[in-house]
């Protein structure tokens, strides 16, 4: 099929519009990524990076327990954060969508986002003020007599998870809310007409219909959580390291770019697997 001159002109125009963005992504995302993939097969020997084309870095990742454990810790923390955040956020999203009067819903959402408009770094540190032994939470609990000894809430995995859940409860509330308000009340009415009680309606109608919202939110949580460096670095007390912390150590302390690249690719593969698992819910649709 040959294109008419008009079609060709149209196509040229289309390319002219699409190219700047495509080039930018290609040049500053694809090329660096390809370069990094290549780098991961090189090695650092002494103070030189040598083009060795070996799997040494990947072998080291699986053989050296302190590197591999970074991935395990990352996965455990991310899984816990994702599940806890969904469980905490869903009821809140439901309350805002169903119980809060329409004209106050927007306000309720803005209030949920508000605390995140401060610096991420400072916010993480202020969790230390909240969670430490002499911090607000422990002082309050000791004062009420619920506790006799302060809880160890920071400088460990608990601290990291609390810091993460804080952010992702907000994010998930937004995505689940967006899904809930799109549900037509007719579904529920129909379910009620058919004799379903409130729980059955929720379990068989509302929940399946909001699953896409949950999955989109959960995937976002997974990606952002597993790639984050700040929260575990500040709240984890270095008692265990997540993969991004291990990557930053390779960079900051010894400039081992090949090793950092290899570890990044591992991280990338994990995220891709998660994407494949959620892909059916993540289709980008045009309205």
């Amino acid at each position, binding site marked *: 099929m040959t294109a008419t001159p008009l079609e060709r002109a149209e196509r040229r125009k289309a390319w002219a519009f699409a190219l700047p963005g495509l080039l930018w992504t290609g040049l500053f995302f694809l090329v660096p990524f390809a370069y990094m993939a290549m780098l991961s097969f090189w090695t650092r020997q*002494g*103070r030189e990076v040598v083009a060795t084309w070996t799997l040494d870095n990947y072998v080291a990742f699986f053989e*050296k*327990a*302190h*590197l591999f*454990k*970074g991935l395990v*810790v990352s996965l455990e923390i991310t899984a816990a954060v994702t599940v806890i955040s969904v469980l905490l956020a869903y009821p809140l999203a439901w309350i805002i969508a169903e119980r809060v009067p329409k004209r106050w819903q927007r306000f309720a959402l803005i209030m949920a986002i508000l605390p995140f408009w401060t610096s991420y770094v400072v916010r993480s540190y202020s969790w*230390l003020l909240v969670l*430490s*032994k*002499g*911090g607000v939470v422990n002082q309050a609990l000791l004062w009420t007599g619920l506790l006799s000894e302060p809880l*160890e809430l*920071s*400088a*460990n995995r608990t601290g990291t998870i609390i810091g993460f859940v804080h952010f992702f409860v907000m994010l998930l509330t937004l995505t689940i809310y967006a899904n809930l308000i799109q549900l037509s009340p007719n579904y529920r009415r129909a379910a009620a007409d058919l004799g379903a009680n409130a729980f059955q309606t929720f379990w068989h109608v509302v929940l399946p219909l909001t699953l896409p919202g949950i999955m989109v939110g959960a995937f976002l949580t997974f990606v952002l959580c597993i790639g984050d460096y700040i929260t575990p670095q*500040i709240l984890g*007390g*270095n*008692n*265990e*390291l997540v993969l991004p912390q*291990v990557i930053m*150590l390779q*960079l*900051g*302390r*010894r*400039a081992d770019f090949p090793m950092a690249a290899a570890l990044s690719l591992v991280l990338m593969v994990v995220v891709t697997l998660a994407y494949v698992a959620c892909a059916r819910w993540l289709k980008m649709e045009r309205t």
Partner: protein
Amino acid sequence: MRKTVSAARMRRLLLVTASAALLSASAASAQETLNALVWCDHTDPGLIEPFEKANDVKVNLKEYEGTGAAISIIEQSRPGDWDVLVIDAVDVPRAIDMDILGEMPADQLPLADLFPEVRMDETTTKDGKVYAVTEKFGYNTISFDKTKVDPADMEDLSVAWSEKYKGRIALYDYYLPMVGLTGVGIGKKTADLTEADLPEIKEKLFEMKKVSRQVSDVVASQTALATGEVDIVIGGGEWLTAGLVAEKPNLDWTVPKQGALRWAQSIGVFKDSEKRDLALKFVQYIVSPEGQARLATSSCYWAMPANAKAGEHLSDAQKAVLRWDRQPEYLKNTQLYPVADADLDAAMQDVWTEMLQQ
């Protein structure tokens, strides 16, 4: 069409913001600049501004932690990017081997005024040429809250792995002095450390990890000590607590009987600097008595100045916090950082990371 109107208004607003930001950013870029790679104590405006004003220059500072990090930054740069380097004195030979430091004229530096113990000619000079000059020194030892622990216990490094203070100890997160200090604790001299010593040190580090609450950087250690989260910081010293004692007088530090580690920073000029005269001037300022007094009490951490004449510019209170008069005994009972080549350095980092992941 209301949308277009508000959109136009938005555009104008954005343009104004952007241009205001641009103007403010470009206003300060006219003078000559000096690029220095430093430890964080050099970023105190109280230290830098007098030099900037006197010479009408802008000093750009990039801070780092640990020689490995500095070397990686330098390797990522091009010749001429940097003018001044602050580096651990024991690592100057590494920098000389990399051929990045330039010679400085000995007669223009107050070498004779330095405390003799920290002049460290054996590392800062080579073949009679001066490549760096010591500017500040202190100790990686034990900081503690004397109202919560028995100070007598702090006189023995084994407290770092004893069960007595389980859960009340923070370890300073810098592998180099910590590996050295642990070695000192089990009777190894830092100067003789080799990879063969690491398994033994690793075992002790793992024990230390078990009884510790956290492994933390400067601020997290300070926060933990000040809030009572922990009562002991292994690897701490005057640099960790000096800034806090005004409000927390119960914080203290000591050098235990086995000894401790001594750190010494030195400053030099890059060989490829395009502004070597100005860079030398900066070095001269930092090691002058006034500069030394400011550096000793700069905001990031306090520590002893290398130039003995700085004492004239420090108040008695400042000297008391620095423990000016007790330096001879500390100097005698402390050892320098281990000197590690690339392989030993990597091995020590692996040990440290393994300890973190325990």
